[in-house]
């Protein structure tokens, strides 16, 4: 067994990596003194993967929206009943979630790790889907779709993505629509499973006070597939740089309007640590422009245009990237106007270099804080794993990112022509 060890001495962290013959990757981050053991089994398969070419085939396959999420629900059912019950008997907490790009199965336990881990490894590899159970699941997922339709925070962010993107499936609800899930059948579910749940498209992470050798041995013993397969070809629609629309509005029962402003970014497909560098640069820029220590934030807060719900983030994936910022505001248009003015001023006068030294230090501190939580370590590893980097690679990027680079990223990303506003407000 070939195990790769990486030590981050300065931060008292270690990472152990191992690759199974099937191409499955496995990562262990030991956390001494922790009680929780947090394990995930994930596939690089999310709501945006609706059109693809199956390895070995020549023609494209198109499947209904929401199928990755539907499959996630179905996997918990096994031939001998629900796997949930078996985890529950061990007192552990299984869960799963589907994002745009991944489906993640996980559990958190404080005792009997081996038994729990066996359950996880086995149920994800053994789907048991019947026509009857597919029909029943449609009712449950319809309830879930309804619940999210009532959630203004969810709506305002998806409406923003719908404004930013014309064609890309990132604009669609992860669970699909009641109409699209109606078209899902047992056969399409198995087709998607066989395509995307091959170990070479998957990763396992374990974070907690565990023995990494035992974890890897358990993986070795339990993975059924021995050979790798060639990659899946994913097909995304031609998106282009332009917006779908500049403004989106939805009427819902909210006391204060909710808003998000987004920037669509088309500088796609950076590789390796370049991803981290770009990601960090955009996040530092967001802080510099409208973060809590910026002049603009103070101005907006003093005018009562934003409050402590204000937040911002940046997402960078292979086929799309965008930043978003927002929260509650009595006047979202006024927030946008002041932001546009600020961006124009920076374009004329340039960025202030000294700001970034401070923000970099702050950002690094907040990054260290994330390492307190087994959940957030695991989440970061999964997100970055499929991009070929690890969470700890950030630490090098923090120390090497330069002002010229940040300036370039500003010019690329903060383009007013590719900015949209989404608002949810009361009648």
């Amino acid at each position, binding site marked *: 067994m070939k195990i790769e060890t990486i030590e981050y001495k*300065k*931060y*008292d962290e270690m990472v152990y990596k191992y690759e199974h013959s099937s191409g499955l990757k496995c990562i262990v981050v030991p*956390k*001494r*003194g*922790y*009680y*929780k053991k947090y394990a995930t089994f994930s596939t690089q398969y999310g709501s945006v993967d609706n059109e693809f070419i199956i390895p070995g085939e020549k023609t494209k396959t198109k499947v209904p929206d929401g199928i990755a999420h539907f499959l996630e629900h179905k996997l918990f059912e096994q031939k001998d009943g*629900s796997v*949930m*019950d078996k985890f*529950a*008997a061990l*007192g552990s*907490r*299984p869960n799963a979630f589907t994002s745009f790009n991944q489906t993640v199965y996980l559990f*958190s*336990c*404080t*005792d009997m790790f081996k038994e729990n881990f066996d359950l996880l490894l086995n149920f994800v590899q053994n789907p048991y889907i019947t026509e009857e159970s597919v029909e*029943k699941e449609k009712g*449950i997922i319809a*309830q*879930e779709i*309804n*619940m999210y339709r*009532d*959630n*203004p*925070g969810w709506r305002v962010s998806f409406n923003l993505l719908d404004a930013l993107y014309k064609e890309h499936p990132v604009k669609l609800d992860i669970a699909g629509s009641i109409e699209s899930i109606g078209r899902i059948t047992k056969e399409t579910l198995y087709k998607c499973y066989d395509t995307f749940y091959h170990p070479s498209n998957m990763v396992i992470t374990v974070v907690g006070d565990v023995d990494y050798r035992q974890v890897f041995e358990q993986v070795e013993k339990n993975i059924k597939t021995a050979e790798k397969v060639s990659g899946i070809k994913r097909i995304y629609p031609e998106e282009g740089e332009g917006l779908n629309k500049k403004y989106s509005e939805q009427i819902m*029962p*909210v*006391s*204060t309007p*909710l808003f998000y402003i987004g920037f669509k970014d088309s500088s796609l497909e950076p590789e390796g640590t370049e991803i981290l560098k770009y990601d960090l640069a955009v996040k530092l820029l967001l802080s510099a422009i409208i*973060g*809590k*220590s*910026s*002049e603009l*934030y*103070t101005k907006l*807060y*003093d005018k*009562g245009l934003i*409050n*402590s719900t204000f937040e911002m983030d940046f997402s960078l994936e292979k086929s799309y990237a965008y930043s978003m910022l927002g929260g509650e505001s*009595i006047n979202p248009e006024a927030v946008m106007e002041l932001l546009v003015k600020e961006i124009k001023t920076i374009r004329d006068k340039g960025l202030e270099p000294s700001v970034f030294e*401070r*923000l970099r*230090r*702050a950002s*690094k*501190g*907040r990054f*260290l*804080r994330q390492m*307190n*939580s087994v959940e957030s370590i695991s989440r970061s590893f999964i997100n970055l794993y499929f991009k070929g980097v690890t969470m700890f690679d950030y630490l090098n990027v923090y120390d090497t990112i330069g002002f010229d680079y940040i300036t370039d990223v500003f010019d690329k990303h903060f383009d007013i022509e590719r900015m949209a506003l989404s608002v949810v407000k009361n009648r």
Partner: protein
Amino acid sequence: MTNINTSGEKPDKISEINGIRIYNIKSDKFKTNTINIFFEDDLNINSVALNALFPSVLRRGCKGLPTIRDINLYLEELYGAVFDCGIVKKGERQIIQFYFEYVSDKYTSDGHRNFERAFEFLLNIIFNPHLQNGIFNEQYVEQEKNNLKMLVEGRTNDKVQYALDRCYELMCREEPFGLYEYGTARQIEGITARELYSHYKEKVLTLPADIFITGELSDTDTEFLIKRIRSIGRKGQKALSAAIVKSLPGKIKYYEDKMDINQAKLSLGFRTNITAKEDEYYALLVYNGILGGGMHSKLFQNVREKAGLAYYVFAGLEKFKGLMIIGSGIDIKEREHVKELILKELDEIQAGNITDYEFKATIKSLETGIQSLKDSQLQIVDFYLSQLTAGTHDTMEALLEKIKLVTKEEVIAVSKKIQLDTEYFLTANN
């Protein structure tokens, strides 16, 4: 890898000075340390909005750092330290929290002792606010009144939480517990800067307070801490009241709200007649777990999984006042059907129908829950603060041991004391 020292995530009491109890929870497995300062008051209609408002004005500026921007520049220089304040409701107590988290000295390399800087900052925020003409800055007060009003009015945005809170509030509308911990828009509107300032001054000098520090404290740190606390001129301590625990007043109450929504919420509020102080509390914890505390529970298994009638359904306890709530998200048409199924599960427990699987999985799940608290500094602190509020003295280990001793018979006995008080339904217009 270095060795990790922990004290089993238990607090050591360092000192008690002028009504301020100071605790240290040692642990070096975290990358950060935290300081929490809590001021505890009775939930009271006359002070609830004032108490909710003054921390958000304090957050705006202090001596030397008069604006939000100054504060955030300071936090960023301190390796991205995190500072916030807020309001917590525990039973009939309104607790004002000031929170600071900073990177441990061993991961910063400038040789400063960060504890001193952090603690000094928090004391400065609490005791030396930015003033104008001898009172709070009027502009800050007006802005924070607006923000607080928005928060209060925005409660309905999160329907899941709202349907639970609203049920409890309607159920206890004649008791302090029925007050929302952030007050009402009307109460907030009437507050003046002068009134708020004198209220604040009285409160920080007289309310009982607890300080929890997580992470390593050196002798020098402790000395500094005690000296600084002594220098605050506190004036005696307000005595707080115990929560009212009422039994069923008679008829079940029914309430309904309508909103523009797709999924209805049904909440059922119960009086358990048992608080955390009683011996039966441990059996109540197990009862609640069997009924609706996770995937193994009767409600989850039967109402959600078998009948497919709820997207979510669970039961939760309010241990300070002896209440229980069942929350569910359901189809609008299924109200009566779901209620019937839920109440049937309560009857099942009363009739003694508890399987070994349900019982054992509940105990195991409570164990996982308690052990997991130890991996979060905030949750460790919250656990011990709750012990103080409830007047109980269990460590996490002791709590776990007592839960493991609970028998099925005790659970059945507890189930007979639980009474439905209020039914609340949040449904669609038309």
